[in-house]
């Protein structure tokens, strides 16, 4: 088991390195960062001076090596845009994103798994139809539209919740609903499909035949098996939420890491983008790893393989 984990970790580091190298090369090709730093009012002398100041005139591999060796010491350099250490900037923005991500995925799971199970127990019933409707609506509604509707209803008309900002837990309610609801349909459909398949399996029929109580059959025998792919999916969704909740962060003015990444790309703020890509890829790697461990715990067959 330990050897397995170590090998997986080694692989993870290689993946992170590859991602960072590829993104570094792509960013390098995407345009002259000196022009972006200089801003709209600069003339060519300003730009040349900046190019030299930041060392953009050196070979790419050299620049990458410099970045990597500092990154290993948690020094991601200074943001070209904010002129602040990237590590501080990301730490600040990441806290908002983490809270939002954890709340969002919890909301999605709390809504999707019970709905999926209920829908699978009574296929084609009214519950199944309602669940289907909810998931189609969640899939079809653009987040920015849903978010603004919630703001109109809960912030403007009812005045129950603040429209934007991240000052208190109340500020996170609406964004959590929007983000979680967007992730819900896939989890729910997968839970339903998994449960349907498992419920018709021989061992469930055996369990029922030997007179096991229905609750035990559903949760111990069926759900435990059906949930395995859901765990993997939720891990990916979670990674997506941490890096990709740009729209939600922008509508609710949350200033999280996703929004920071999106804006930094437009600003050619290379150190920030580079560091964020590394952080996001590490998230994916960690979550996938945790999901594998969790699945191995749920399904003993996976432990041996």
């Amino acid at each position, binding site marked *: 088991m330990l050897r397995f984990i170590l090998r997986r970790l080694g692989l993870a580091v290689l993946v992170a390195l590859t991602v960072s190298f590829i993104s570094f090369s792509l960013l390098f090709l*995407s*345009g*002259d*960062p000196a*022009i*972006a*730093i*200089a*801003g*709209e*009012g*600069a*003339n*060519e*002398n*300003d*730009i040349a*001076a*900046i190019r030299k*100041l930041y060392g953009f005139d050196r070979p790419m591999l050299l620049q990458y090596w410099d970045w990597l060796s500092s990154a290993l010491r948690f020094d991601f350099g200074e943001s070209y*845009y*904010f*002129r*602040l250490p990237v590590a501080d*900037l990301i730490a600040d923005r990441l806290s908002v994103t983490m809270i939002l991500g954890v709340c969002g995925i919890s909301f999605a799971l709390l809504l999707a798994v019970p709905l999926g199970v209920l829908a699978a127990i009574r296929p084609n019933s009214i519950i199944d139809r309602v669940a289907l409707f909810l998931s189609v609506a969640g899939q079809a509604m*653009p987040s*920015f*539209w849903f978010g*603004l509707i919630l*703001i*109109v209803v809960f*912030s*403007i*008309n009812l*005045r129950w919740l*603040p*429209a*934007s*900002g991240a000052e208190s837990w109340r500020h996170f309610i609406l964004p959590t609903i929007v983000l979680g609801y967007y992730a819900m349909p896939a989890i729910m459909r997968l839970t339903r499909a998994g449960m349907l398949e498992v419920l018709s399996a021989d061992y469930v029929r055996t369990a029922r035949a030997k007179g096991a109580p229905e609750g035990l059959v559903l949760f111990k025998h069926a759900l435990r098996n059906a949930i395995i792919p859901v765990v993997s999916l939720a891990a990916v969704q979670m990674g997506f939420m941490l890096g990709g909740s740009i729209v939600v962060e*922008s*509508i*609710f*003015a949350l*200033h999280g890491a996703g*929004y920071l990444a999106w*804006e930094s790309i*437009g600003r*050619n703020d290379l150190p920030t983008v580079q560091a964020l890509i590394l952080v996001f890829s590490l998230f994916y790697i960690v979550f996938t790893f945790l999901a594998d461990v969790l699945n191995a715990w749920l399904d003993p067959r996976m432990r041996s393989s």
Partner: protein
Amino acid sequence: MNRYLLGTAVAALTLSAGGAFADKSDDTLRVAFTKELESVDSYYNSAREGVVLQRAIWDGLIYRDPVTNEYVGNLATSWEWIDDTTLELKLREGVSFHNGEPFNADDVVYTVNFVADEANGAVTQNNVNWMESAEKIDDYTVRIHTKAPYPAAIEYLSGPVSMYPNEYYAEVGPTGMGTAPIGTGPYKVVSVDPGKHFVLEANTEYHDGPKGQPEIGRIDIRTIPEVNTQLAELFNGTLDLIWQVPSDQAERIEQMGDFVVSNESTMRVGYLAMDAAGRSGADNPFTDLKVRQAVNHALDRETLVDALLKGKSTPIHTACFPSQFGCAQDVTEYEYDPEKAKALLAEAGYPDGFKTEFYAYRDREFAEAIASYLNAVGIETDFKMLQYSALRDLNMKGEVPISFQTWGSFSVNDASAMVSQFFKHGELDDARDDEVLADLDIADSSTDPAVRKEHYALALQRIADQAYWAPMFSYNTNYVFTDEVSYAPTADEVLRFHEMSWK
């Protein structure tokens, strides 16, 4: 498009919500920025939001009245050109910075010498690189030496150049100044959460300068990127003032009647730049005068202004903004005449028109309208929307045949801030006309205002005759605020908190 429809929905649904509750009670004006400001240090940002904070936190040596455009003393009380490149200023006595440091000649000398040094990397070199150095004569007298005769100096000293405390700036540098700014201005900084949240507080010991005393006790600025969210916060009373509101939404809010909607012009000018010098290939059609004239005749400036820009925008025919010093308006104008445009294209050897790449970096809807006018006379456009820096990159390499550009002149009210920026054979100069260059050289450096005016007029006339650009329109911006706020926005796109008060 969906977003605009949604704006209607937001406005419609909230009509019933009634008036906003006031923030007058806690003497706090809540304002939204749309863009994350990079740094509050005004020499290290190139953003409009930065100009707004700069005018609140710091003072310049000179002040230009935004309505009369008259120059009066601010941190300086009088000034005089000793020779063509030396400006001597007498400083105001008894002024202190927010941290208690007294203001005197040492602060001016330090600030000027620091920002004028290119190695310190002030972002907008154009604002500061005309200064060579500053020299202390006594505690309240300084001389600023310019690199060459520079008549626009007074304008720059009343705009982007503000005075920093020497001891504090030497200690904390631009990064420290960006997070804990110290100035002499009407507002003190309480807190800066970089890019996200800025809190200012009235400076109760503000000197008796031309800006007047601040009236509103506290200014709370949050960055909210989404305009619809800003509107929602305005409607439920958690914001008091928003600006840069799109015109269609501003019109709808005005109909609601609960808020003051004020439209003002800005100095930003939209224009088409054409590769007259043939940098993107000597065979490119825009090297032909007739083609450039055809482009100018193809555009219906009046309709663009009435239907798209609205408000206080006006059609523009010059390579500068009309209020700028030297921006002569009696130049050749090209009226909207698509038939004439087609005839000119035919004369130039393109009876069936031609195909060209067409670039833009902002205002997609304007760019698309412009492209349709070009298409109508036979100029088929391959439209490409790029980020500003990417387009600028292409432009500097000379790979852009025609593009939709805009320029805001940093609110500097002098033609040099626009026409001289683009027609002095720099990397962004598409015309490279020696005659224009010669006139601009004289106009930029003469200390005689009459000579300056004459040569800007000559340069602008030649640019218009040669149709190097197709200038189109000026921009405007909408300010929306609760009816408890009393404020008259000015035509330079700068929010002045010290001019605001509660009704």
